[in-house]
């Protein structure tokens, strides 16, 4: 039977993203704290937070509807499915053909759609402000992301992530202007999508500048745990995506032996750590922007994506 190892690898991937994502969040927080010369909480703190939140009772606003209660699970499911489809340590996963890169981005779009609705459900002004700003950010970040996908798809001749990753690992890629632009744009989109500084501040509360936190203000208990978990998963997803596209080294191919899977997993954890350090460095070094500067930031990502695509239409070698 060839199917059983395939199922095992796919299952390992699904479990891996679930297990590693709070660790990545904790690691970024730890590095940030060390950079600010404080000790910071343990890297395992997010696990404890999640467990504590899950065990607590939910305090639900009186006006909250069924949508408000369903949303955390919907977001979690959509993000988990998306994260399980991005190659982390191995390409050619069993269900990798279920959704290509466009569909993965659209799955995250579904999650955001529900979160924005949940922000408006209770009928408070904070929820509304969060949703309204979130959709504004998304309306620029999503087209930028699609243009980045166009760039990659034109180069690799596919929107299938496994194929793109295999292409990026092959020697025929070389240095290209459009790839550089796509990388910069992708990092900018990832920062915006994950509500990191300078677009949003994941650590802030009770400030008029917050976006993501304003939407989830009314959540508590297990619902909040699900939403925080999804946020960690999304960060991990974007890091995995950037890693598998722009650092596709040591990815195990389909049907590889256990040794190469182990190497792939080790390399993946190394990539996550590197990305975590870089993110913490960047966040410590910059300040948060005003909300109405965000469109300019994302507009730059959009233009970079468009330019990268146009360059490829003009010449296949750029």
């Amino acid at each position, binding site marked *: 039977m060839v199917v059983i190892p395939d199922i095992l690898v796919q299952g390992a991937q699904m479990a891996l993203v679930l297990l590693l994502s709070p660790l990545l969040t904790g690691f970024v927080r730890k590095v940030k704290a060390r950079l600010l010369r404080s000790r910071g909480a343990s890297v395992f703190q997010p696990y404890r937070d999640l*467990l504590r939140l899950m065990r*607590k*009772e*939910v*305090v*639900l606003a*009186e*006006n909250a*509807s*069924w*949508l408000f209660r369903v949303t955390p*699970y919907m977001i*979690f*499911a959509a993000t988990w*499915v998306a994260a399980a489809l991005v190659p982390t340590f191995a390409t050619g996963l069993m*269900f990798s053909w*279920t*959704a*290509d890169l466009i569909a993965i981005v659209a799955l995250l*779009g579904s999650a955001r*759609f529900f979160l*924005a*609705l949940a922000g*408006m*459900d*209770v*009928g*408070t*002004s*904070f*929820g*509304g*402000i969060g*949703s*309204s*700003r979130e*959709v*504004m950010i998304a*309306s620029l*970040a999503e*087209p930028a992301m*699609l*243009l980045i996908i*166009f760039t990659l*798809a*034109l180069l690799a*001749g596919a*929107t*299938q992530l496994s*194929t793109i990753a295999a292409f990026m690992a092959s020697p025929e890629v070389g240095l290209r202007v459009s790839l550089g632009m796509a990388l910069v744009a992708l990092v900018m989109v990832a920062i915006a999508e994950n509500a990191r500084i300078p677009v949003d501040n994941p650590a802030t509360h*009770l400030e008029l500048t917050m976006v993501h936190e304003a939407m989830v*203000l009314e959540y508590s*208990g297990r619902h909040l745990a*699900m939403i925080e978990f999804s946020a960690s998963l999304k960060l991990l997803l974007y890091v995995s995506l950037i890693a598998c596209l722009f650092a596709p080294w040591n990815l195990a191919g389909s049907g590889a032996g256990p040794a190469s899977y182990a190497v792939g997993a080790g390399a993946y954890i190394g990539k996550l750590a590197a990305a975590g350090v870089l993110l913490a460095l960047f966040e410590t070094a910059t300040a948060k922007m005003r909300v*109405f500067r965000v469109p300019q930031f994302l507009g730059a990502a*959009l233009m970079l*994506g*468009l330019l990268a695509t*146009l360059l490829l*239409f003009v010449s296949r070698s750029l």
Partner: protein
Amino acid sequence: MAIAILLWCIAALIGTAVVAVAAARSRHAMRTVYALCFAACGIALSAALFHLAAGGGAAQTLTLPLGLPWLGAWFRLDALAAFFLVIVNLGGAAASLYGLGYGRHEPAPHRVLPFFAAFLAGMNLVVLADDAFTFLLSWEFMSLSSWALVMTHHREPSNLRAAYIYIVMASFGTLALSLAFGLLAGSYVQYGFEAIRAAEHEPLVAAFVLMLVLLGAGSKAGIVPLHVWLPLAHPAAPSHVSALMSGVMTKVAVYGFVRIVFDLRGDPVWWESMVVLGLGGGTAALGILHALMEKDLKRLLAYSTIENIGVIFVSLGLAMAFQANAMQWAAALALTAALFHALNHSFFKSLLFFGAGAVLTATGERDMEKLGGLIHRMPATSFLFLAGCMAISALPPLNGFVSEWLIFQAVLQSPDLLEWGLRIMVPAVGGLLALSAALAAACFVKAFGVTFLGRPRTPAAERAGEADRFSIAAMAVLAALCLLAGVLPGFVIDGLAPVTLALIGESMPVQASLPWLTVVPIAESRSSYNGLLVFLFIAVSASLAVFVIHRFASRALRRAPAWDCGFPNSSPLTQYTAGGFAQPIRRVFGTLAFRAVEHVDMPPPGDTRPARLTVELHDLVWEWLYAPVERAIGFAAVRLNHLQFLTIRQYLTLVFLALVTLLLALAIWS
């Protein structure tokens, strides 16, 4: 024979319309008319589906001794017609079902019932027509019956204006189409489609035909800048008619475009596709931006129709570009995507208009800023409306995503195009499409969030009750179709194969035989999508998370007042409104698209006057294109008015001068 059944159904619809004129005021008229329409559309739908499922079969023709004496009325049922008949009759059956419940709240049923049946018959006739005369006659019949429906509530001045602008634009469109057919008929004056298809058309004539069709069919579909009537007229009609106009009649216009451009006119030239692409992209972006600024629920939906028409035309433009470059398989992909999106849009737009109608019946309000909290009072309607919002926002695993995904796949085939203009244009239009898709999601978060979520903003919203069972059944059927077409898109794509095969000579690979019903446009290593598995994965992982948490962690729940950072305000007016929600997006795009200006009137300290913020938005298309024309016509009318008040001597002089001028002109010309 399927075509005979279809024509009998149309005859039944026309008969219903005639009887309804006489009997509209009787007690059972409403139920009988809608039930008859439902039955006729249902039979026609099955006939069309059967014809399409039988592989498109051979085209069936039928000639009736009606119309012009030496020509007769020609009808033809081929794969393309069958596909659009499915759209028309599915929408028609759903609207009739909805009408069974909704019609009870209609104060003037005699103004709706006859024209409703006639409108359905007209749309069916347009699709079946096989000669220019029948086509134009049915087209005008469709326009006039829908105009009468827009005039239903004619006591409201805004509806009168809407109907006036609609009839002007509809006449203009028919004029353009009749000129297009005149050019196609050529000097031999052949009005049968068979003869037009066989004839060779000069490139210049073909280009003129395309422009005229863009004016004629485009004005009916709502292409910018010919869209101005659409957001006025569609919402003015009763809601099930709005659904038909937005969800179905715009598709009949798309049918007209496809029939003439892909079937009758011959192969396109590459620059023509650039015109269609540019118009489509602009229409999509501008339509959805207008929708975002709107606070009237039905007008928002009408503007979103414009966006979707733009998306369809972008895809049609791509198909033309590929066809001009002899890339038939890519053209088949693009055309399939366009037709699939047309089908999808007819599903979710009808669903959303039905939902808006249910809200209108329950509260008497179309203004979203006077609604809110309806999810508690109209649970079924709000759930189904949410499904429609998800589908139209192109979220997987529903159907809107599949067609947009196919369009993006078609965009990605374009670097193989030869022309530079196209190579630069296609990625830019692709970017515009991505932008409109993202803005559409924002727009429908707003539409659902402000209308159905939060706290009720007025007593009317507080007292709302659930819609009747017919309305809910109609919406549920459409929502189920949205899910089915999203989860099993392979069957729809295979159903479209005979259509593209007939028009382009190529079709997408057969999908239904692939394992797990995956959609693979070209090759699995390039791109594939499986709606069924995505749906299953989401369902399984969500249920798993719910089970694990409720079983092993906690299931305790307590209701308490909202937190809102410790300062909850009891007034529901502190919630975000439709205008407030769209404000960030208006700041980003508004200055460019609407010349938006904010005026802040801040009283000085000590003054007790309230501070006011007003936003000024300009509809640039209206101000730059239509207003000057309107002014010029008004100016000419005022000037010419003098001619009505002359003395008899002056009239005689005028006649004499006119005669001399004409004779002179004749003498010089010859």
